[in-house]
């Protein structure tokens, strides 16, 4: 133990890699190889490096599959973790497939794993919502709620997490009123339950999201500040939840046009996250990207570009080329270039975003349509109207048009 505490992260990584290499020599189905793979994957996941963790998770899973069989319940947890990695790296189809596998394993013993089934279902509902498969998402959500109520009733404190997850799913499915209802229920449960003020802080942060999405920034800020106070009480002023709350406060300020306050909040968020997680962590990159958004809105183009590039590098390294966080940073950078009139760079980035959105979400997804519209708007600004009309069309029609 004393060795690990004194080691730097780089030394730990080297040691874990060496252990994997050493274990590889012991044979494919060796337990030491499995442990080494899982340890290195866990190391990467703790540091947000999901892109590097994912192949290790797959290898570890295949070892377990070989050892225990394809539908053994031991596989359910690593499948859930792998699904999480896929979600973060933007590989939503794989995430959905892997989570469905975990659900199937849990369903083999539905009574014993009922809570896990409800969790899988709500996760699948969220993925379906992001992929714009709304009916499928609603079905998963309804089933999750039904199972959780059978297990816990209506007032069990374990329902707080479920209510929050259901609220997020309902909001992603386009039903913010239902989300408010879930958050209010969660708030009432947290008020009475043993989880205390920290859980209420999570509820308030989510209520702040809803208010912000509706454009009620003052109300959102009130919720975010309540969440911040709650998290500061439970985690201290340097806690990760506190850093996240500062990020939310900054975004609310930036959206209402108070850029100085926004930048101060972003600065706090960056500071807390870099201190807690290190400057290379993608959560710090998230704060940098948000700070870049604020700078861009305040027309501080040089600072914004530098921050976007930093976030872009970190997201690309940690999450891969399809990660939603990277796409957001690239989109912000493209906006920046477009605003500055650097059309060639903006065109290149927007074209890249169109291809990525079409690959990740499919050509008919609203996100892909929005990306194509952005590319067309940028072309129109350069008076390239025919190219803009072509850019607006989905890929199939574009191919047909070129054939004609």
């Amino acid at each position, binding site marked *: 133990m004393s060795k690990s505490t004194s080691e730097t992260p780089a030394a730990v990584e080297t040691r874990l890699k060496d252990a994997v290499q050493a274990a590889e020599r012991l044979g494919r189905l060796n337990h030491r190889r499995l442990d080494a793979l899982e340890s290195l994957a866990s190391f990467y996941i703790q540091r947000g490096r999901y892109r590097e963790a994912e192949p290790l998770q797959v290898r570890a899973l295949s070892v377990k599959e070989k050892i225990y069989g394809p539908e053994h319940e031991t596989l359910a947890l690593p499948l859930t973790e792998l699904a999480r990695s896929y979600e973060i790296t933007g590989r939503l189809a794989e995430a959905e497939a892997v989570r469905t596998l975990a659900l199937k394993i849990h369903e083999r013993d539905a009574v014993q794993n009922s809570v896990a089934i409800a969790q899988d279902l709500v996760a699948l509902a969220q993925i379906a919502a992001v992929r714009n498969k709304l009916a499928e998402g609603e079905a998963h959500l309804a089933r999750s709620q039904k199972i959780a109520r059978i297990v816990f009733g209506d007032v069990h404190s374990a329902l707080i997490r479920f209510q929050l997850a259901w609220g997020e799913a309902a909001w992603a499915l386009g039903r913010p009123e239902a989300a408010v209802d879930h958050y209010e229920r969660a708030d009432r449960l947290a008020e009475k339950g043993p989880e205390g003020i920290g859980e209420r802080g999570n509820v308030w942060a989510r209520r702040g999201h809803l208010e912000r*999405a509706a454009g009620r920034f003052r109300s959102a800020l009130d919720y975010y500040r309540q969440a911040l106070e709650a998290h500061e009480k439970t985690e201290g002023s340097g806690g990760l939840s506190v850093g996240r709350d500062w990020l939310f406060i900054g975004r609310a300020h930036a959206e209402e046009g108070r850029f100085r306050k926004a930048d101060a909040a972003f600065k706090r968020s960056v500071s807390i996250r870099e201190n807690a997680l290190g400057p290379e962590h993608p959560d710090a990159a998230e704060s940098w990207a948000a700070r870049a958004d604020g700078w861009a809105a305040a027309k501080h183009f040089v600072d914004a570009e530098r921050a976007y590039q930093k976030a872009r590098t970190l997201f690309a390294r940690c999450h891969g080329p399809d990660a939603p966080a990277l796409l*957001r940073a690239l989109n912000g950078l493209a906006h920046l270039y477009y605003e500055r009139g650097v059309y060639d760079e903006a065109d290149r980035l927007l074209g890249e975003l169109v291809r990525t959105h079409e690959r990740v979400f499919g050509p008919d997804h609203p*996100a892909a349509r*929005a990306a194509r519209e952005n590319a067309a708007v940028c072309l129109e*600004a350069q008076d390239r109207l025919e190219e803009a009309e072509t850019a607006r069309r989905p890929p199939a029609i574009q191919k047909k048009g070129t054939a004609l």
Partner: protein
Amino acid sequence: MTLTPDDTPTPKPLLARRKRTLLSFRRRRDVVSFVLNVALFSGGIAALVVTTLQWRRLTALPGVSEPPRAEVPAPYEAPAPVEEPAPAPETGKPFLPEDEEETPAPPPPPTKKPTPLPDSKKPAPVAEPKGPRFELFSAGFKFRTLADRNGRLTAAVTPAGSDAALRLDYDLAEGQWVQSFVDLKQDLSKFKRVQFVFNGNGGANTFELKIVDSDGTNVGIDWPRASGRAALTVVDLPLTDLTYLWGGDPKMDWKRVRQIYFAVSKKSGDQGGRGRVVVRGVRFL
């Protein structure tokens, strides 16, 4: 998966920027936009014209802001030909005996209160060219008087509106000439013209302007039988029109002007008698 408003996969939309060529009709909505813009522009211009016309009509109403329209000035009356120049007093050299004191005779009592000049007879101010100018009455010079043995003259500079006026009350019932003059040392070489107006009442006598330089050269001009004219006479003369009269050398030295005279004399055909001449706004431009 924890979702926030920023986690929506839909990218933030770009705000469309109209940066096209000035006239681009590649799409139907461009034509519509062009026609709409032309209509709005024409409407704006028409509104501007109408507003301007209305404003001009309002401001043209009397008593609003426009100054009263000036009357057409009385035409300059050329001096009638004089048969024989009367012996005018030599300004440089007084016509009095040396032993006689130069005490001006008391002014003749005015027969009646001088009739005020009718306002309606005010001429339009002479166009004032830009550049240097010399206002004789504003310079604070003291006007003195001179008359022949039997002539009588009272001169006074009185305010007349925003300007000053030289009032000459004379009596030529028995005398031949009177004059009021000012001593100065002035360089008038940079001026080209002299302007003033005068009018008067009483007998029709000759009114004269004379300017003397340092060596006694007299140049001047006269207006026969103009001293009693109630209508204002507008004088706007090039200095070159002042002719040499006598004294000094024939060349007027405008750099060394020493005296300026306003005189009333009784020449052949003049009526003599009493009268008043008022001179206003003497300026060299």
